[in-house]
């Protein structure tokens, strides 16, 4: 296993973890752009652009792109988040040149108007799909309230209105502001030829002109709020709660992930035993998400509407107890065992390594091996977790519930 990197004059970076024993190789262009970089007028443009990137270039039609990806048997896709847009493909090693040529080419898409109008309909269908799907927009709403006035409060998909109003000119302008080679990392993992990768990327990106890219990263203001949204058609009640957490550069993220695992892993955690094992909730979990400048701990619950008030009470008590007494040594050890074993298992797939390396480099300009990651988790102590609890109290949170029940409120705390 060898880590290699290269930076071109135009700012494009390549990072790769080479494993000559792997059966496949995976490649991804990681663009440092997402919904947080959008103005309200173009809400949803990052994600819509991600779709449009597959619609062809001056030398390829949309059908060509799809056909070529299939011809080399690639497993390819793309995703957009608040901060990143990622285009990737896993292939057999013999198809490295073809897949890099294709992914590299589509990084300079034509953004043709006729394709834009057809794809707009697909985006509107995607929005409609999520409207029908639990938790019925609760997570996005919770982000919007928690981060009100902050760029992280912006929706990734946008709304039916914002996407309908979007023009191809606005999308092209956004592309011109965000897809600078200096804002892009090409990450690769698996059985790959690094010198060939560098040569090829040099040819592909030779005409990519660099320009300055700016991201607003104001501090997020911690706040508390409770919102109950009515969804009469829903059978279950859904709760999303967001508290603050460590940011991408904060080493406390390891302790925060372990804390979330002890309190809210989907099996064997305190929330599991109290809410799920007892049948009070269908699902209950806590996850952490790190962003540039801030982070969140997100609690998610699905339960019968009539049980929601008592479940909220239970969650608040559970959080208060953790806040007061911290976590136990044996709980922490089990959480380490679960997280580290899953890290090692996931690393068996080239594609999963590629995501880890690309995201790590985009966020921190840093590479760590799986072994180093395991060591960082192993080094966390009960005191580290206590420090995280103190720095990011659950009592300061935004809670959104969606379902048939609206007469719900935040349980009283601090008793």
């Amino acid at each position, binding site marked *: 296993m060898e880590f290699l990197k290269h930076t071109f004059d135009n700012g494009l970076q390549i990072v790769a973890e080479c494993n000559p*024993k*792997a*059966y*496949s190789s995976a490649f991804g262009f990681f663009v440092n752009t997402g919904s947080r970089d959008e103005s309200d007028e173009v809400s949803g443009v990052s994600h819509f652009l991600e779709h449009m990137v*597959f619609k062809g270039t001056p030398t390829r039609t*949309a*059908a060509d*792109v*799809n*056909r070529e*990806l*299939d*011809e*080399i*048997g*690639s*497993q*390819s896709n793309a995703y957009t988040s608040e901060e990143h847009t990622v285009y990737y493909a896993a292939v*057999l090693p013999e*198809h490295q040149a073809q897949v890099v040529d294709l992914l590299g080419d589509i990084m300079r898409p034509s953004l043709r108007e006729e394709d834009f109008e*057809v*794809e*707009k*309909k*697909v*985006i509107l*269908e*995607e929005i*409609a*799909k999520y409207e*029908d*799907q*639990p938790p019925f927009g609760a997570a996005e709403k919770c982000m919007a309230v928690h981060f009100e006035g902050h760029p992280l409060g912006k929706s990734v998909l946008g709304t039916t209105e914002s996407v309908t109003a979007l023009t191809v000119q606005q999308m092209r302008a956004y592309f011109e502001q965000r897809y600078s080679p200096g804002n892009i990392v090409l990450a690769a993992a698996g059985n790959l030829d690094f010198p060939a990768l560098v040569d090829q990327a040099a040819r592909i990106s030779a005409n990519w002109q660099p320009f300055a890219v700016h991201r607003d990263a104001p501090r997020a203001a911690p706040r508390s709020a409770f919102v109950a949204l009515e969804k009469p*058609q*829903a*059978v*279950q009640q859904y709760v999303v709660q967001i508290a603050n957490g460590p940011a991408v550069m904060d080493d406390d993220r390891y302790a925060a992930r372990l804390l979330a695992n002890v309190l809210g892993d989907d*099996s*064997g955690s305190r929330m599991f*035993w109290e809410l*799920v*094992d*007892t*049948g009070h*909730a*269908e699902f209950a979990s806590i996850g952490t998400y790190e962003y540039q400048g801030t982070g969140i701990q997100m609690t998610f619950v*699905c339960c*019968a509407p009539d049980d929601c008030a008592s479940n909220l009470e239970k969650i608040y008590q559970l959080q208060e107890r953790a806040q007061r007494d911290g976590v136990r040594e044996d709980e922490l*050890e*089990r959480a380490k*065992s*679960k997280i*580290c*074993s*899953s890290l*090692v*298992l996931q690393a*068996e*797939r*080239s594609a999963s390594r590629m995501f880890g390396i690309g995201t790590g480099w985009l966020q921190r300009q840093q590479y760590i091996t799986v072994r180093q990651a395991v060591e960082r988790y192993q080094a966390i102590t009960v005191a580290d977790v206590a420090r995280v609890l103190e720095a990011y109290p659950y009592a300061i949170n935004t809670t959104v519930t969606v379902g048939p029940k609206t007469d719900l409120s935040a349980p009283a705390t601090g008793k």
Partner: protein
Amino acid sequence: MPQEIHIHKLANGLTLLAEPMPWLESAAFALLVPAGYARDPGDQWGLANLTCEMVQRGCGSRDSRQFIEDLEMLGADTSGGIRNAHTSFAGAMPADSLPAVLEIYADVVRCPHLPEDQLDDARLVCLQEIYAAADDLAQSAMTELRQRHYGDPWGRPPHGSVEAVSVLSLADIQQMIERHYRPSGAILSVAGKFDWPALRDCVENLFGDWSGAEPPAIEGRPPAGGYHHLSSDSSQTHIGVAYPSVPYSDPGYMQARGAVGVLSDGMSSRLFTEIRENRGLVYAVSASCDSLKDRGSVVCYAGTTTERAQETLDVLVAELVRLADGIAEDELNRLKARIKSGLIMMQESSNSRSRSIAFDWYHLGRVRTLAEVGGLIDGLTCQSINAYLAEHPPQDLVVVTLGEKPLETTIGIS
């Protein structure tokens, strides 16, 4: 690709399958007992699921908490779930943990505690699953489709009904275990890094003295078929279409799989191109082969907003009609490339191989190596697939829609 898959039949009927993947650091297993939801007796729909929930609440020397905590310390990510023919326990772990994890799961199927004081909690867990499934509209449409396409018991809702689950007793659960948590017809598959003689001995020790008779065959009732609409105040109309095909064990299966691949595998497939790329009608559209032991089918899904639902169904059906006219060489070449690269990438996952070899054993009574599957894919030709399609054109469609308005259908296309 490795050619070796170990098969060891225990005297009591349990089959151990093991595929060595010595380049991995992990091992994965799947333990299938013949207690699928198609075995739920009479009106006790949901019994297999409640039983599956109860056996994981303490077994052998461990209570319910110790059971989960020990698995966590072993780094094992495991789960239990029900399918139509089996209840299945499966998971992946660091290779060293495999013997200890198998020991725990031998206890799960052989000596569960079934704590009476946890029955009501377990029942609530199962009821929660039924409620939550009702909020998943796409899944609701597809569950209704399976019911109308396969009939009872193969197409019934896996989690049963609120009414039935509410009155199930511990005695019902004990009877389910007595009858169906049995070695005859059970499959234990392992893939990953392990030592074969040691694994075989370990499994003999853990399961060798397990006994019980083979359960009787299941008799099914004919399906309703036709078109059915479920009314819902939803943003999208969810469309499910199913039609008969051949089962996994049929000599024509690979041809059927090839034809469906042309319809739905990859971004250049026909459904994706015609319904999403060219017309922008949907975000999600798919078709896949689905197999019972004696019957196969093709199941399609599309989700679209109400005003475009009719056009979506019409284009979907038109593509099924066009499929019968045959496929082209370039379509087949792309499909082969996709399937073959998927097969090679499977070697990065002990989990998918352990599940796959268990599936093979149930359907074929033997296991195909990746090399053998690769050979079958190489052997596909346009001629063979088109001959299959001429003989088995998509027809006798069963259609379910869920949304604001019912649609016009032409069911009996031929």
